[in-house]
């Protein structure tokens, strides 16, 4: 069982531009990824929105390997800004985990 963290969810909510709410879980993004990574944007974003920090962090290699090619984004039927969301997650993780300031 995973505890939903409303704190992380609330912090993510404050990030302008994170917009995975309209995702309807079709998986087009995953099918189109040219890196063929086992990266599931739909699952990753859902975990992020639920504030599941550990689950999100488990995908750090994939989050930072994303080419930001926007192949997924261009084909998303729900208009989710997938690449932009990836950048938002990178920012959040960089700020909170690596403290590069």
């Amino acid at each position: 069982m995973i505890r939903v963290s409303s704190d992380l969810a609330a912090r993510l909510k404050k990030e302008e531009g994170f917009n995975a709410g309209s995702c309807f879980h079709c998986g087009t993004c995953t099918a189109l990824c040219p890196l063929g990574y086992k990266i599931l944007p739909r699952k990753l974003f859902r975990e992020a929105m639920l504030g599941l920090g550990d689950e999100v962090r488990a995908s750090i290699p994939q989050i930072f390997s994303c080419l930001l090619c926007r192949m997924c984004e261009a084909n998303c039927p729900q208009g989710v800004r997938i690449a932009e969301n990836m950048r938002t997650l990178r920012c959040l993780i960089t700020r909170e985990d690596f403290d590069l300031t």
Partner: protein
Amino acid sequence: MTNKRRIGVYVCHCGGNISDHVDVKDVARTLAGEADVEVARTHLFACSDASQQEMIDEIKDRKLDGLVIASCSPKLHTFTFRAMAQRAGLNPYQYVHVNLREQCSWVHGGDKAAATAKGINIVRAGVAKCALTHPLTPLRIETQPRVLVVGAGVAGMRAAIALAEMGLSVFVIERENEPGGWTSQVGWMGPDHQHGPEVVAKLLKEVKNHENVVLYTNAELTAKSGHIGDFTVTIRLCGEKDLTLNVGAIVVATGFTPYEPRDGEYGWGLPGVVTLKEFRQLLEEGDGPLTYRGVPVRDVGFIYCVGSRQTESEDCPEPNTHCSRFCCMATAFSGSLLHEHEKKFGRTINQYHLYRDVRTYGRLETVYAKARADGALFLRWDPSDPPRVEQRNGRLAVKVKDTLLGDEELEIGADLVVLATGMVPRKNGALDDVLKIPKSKDGFYNEIHIKLRPVETAIDGVCIAGTSQGPKNLAESVASSLAAVARTGALLKKGYVDLEPLVAKIDTSKCVWCNECLKACPYGAIERVLYGDKEVATVIESSCKGEGACVPICPQDAIVIEGYRDDQIVAMIDASLKETVPA
């Protein structure tokens, strides 16, 4: 062979539906030589325009005085051929329909000889019945241009205004102190941000200002007599004074009752577990940021389908299997209202919508889309494993398996858990005994035909409107209410109504007024009258449906149903027992 009657017998092939299994030509040939039959033929499709015209010509040319059509189910074409008989100058009630398709060819495929023999027998029975028919005239009833509307919610008031605009007089009765029903208690409504109390106030103003409408509150319908077009109704005002009104039709818009969760159902009974209506009151009635019992609210869980789409279980022996239609939209819309609140007070409130299937159909889809854009997170649970709500460290903990996260079990901490409770039938008590409107299995009032006659009931002259018929959102409720207005207006503006003459007849010489028929009649169509010095029963023909409960119960054998008289039934049995000798 002497012919008392001149009956035309027409046997239909129904394409091949009948003729593939029954030798229709043989049936016609056999019948052609029998008593009372003037002519017997077959038609490829008796219902086609060409065949009807041929039959009309023959009825006229050969001066037929009876008609037997052996074709499909009478449910399909009784009225087709009654109208045809009328056009041919024959009394429509001297036509008899024989069901040669559903009751013979479709059930006896593979044995043509036996099916043909049976076909001959049932057509013979039809001829025997037809030979004993006599012309009947529909009962023409004058209608009263006044309507009683039961219930002054939005559906009832909207109906009253529309009926008044037709020039009809309208009496609206409301059981409660205040008109307006549930809509007056809901605040903002989706999808177009209308305010419930404002909508009600606008309608109420129109009702009060219209010279044709009279509104009674604290008023209950306690008695009804009469029939379609001319009812006498008794209204009890404030539980003491009785008022008698004469109306031509009744529109019933008594609304619904919100589902009351069982103790412990989704945490019901725990502090912080509220219904959607209570949540909206908390949200809309407070001045500052949302709090519950003094504690600021940071996380809200919404649980959908509470009291709707239930399956039978030990805890729930009588499940509400229906979808309540309005709750997905109303709950998603509440999510957007919560988001507005969040922006207004600059506080983040997380909202988790725990749903089974989102049914925001048609234009309501925009409400769902907006809620998601506004930050509502939708988690889908499976009914085999519903969410559980527990108390933990002074807060609520909702455990749910999110099917979109691979059935991962999540625990969500919440300050409020909002149950989206559905609609259940309203308990109308004595009103049900007065109106006798049939109910469907779910307990709501039932229409005659779900698609083609969606607001009329089995009680002629009584229409149902709004959520008394089943769950509806407000727009649907008003649409059904205006449909009831259209049917009621069509009835009363015409000024008269023709009723089936196939009703009970009482032989006053045999009747001894034992009261049995009165007790058996579900339509209140029997009355006691004095016939000379003798008390006898009489039939209120306009209330009688000809369904016949009084006939076998009568110890004096004094009652017959026109069109199904004893002599006709005996003749049919005799005819169908004749030995079949195909021609």
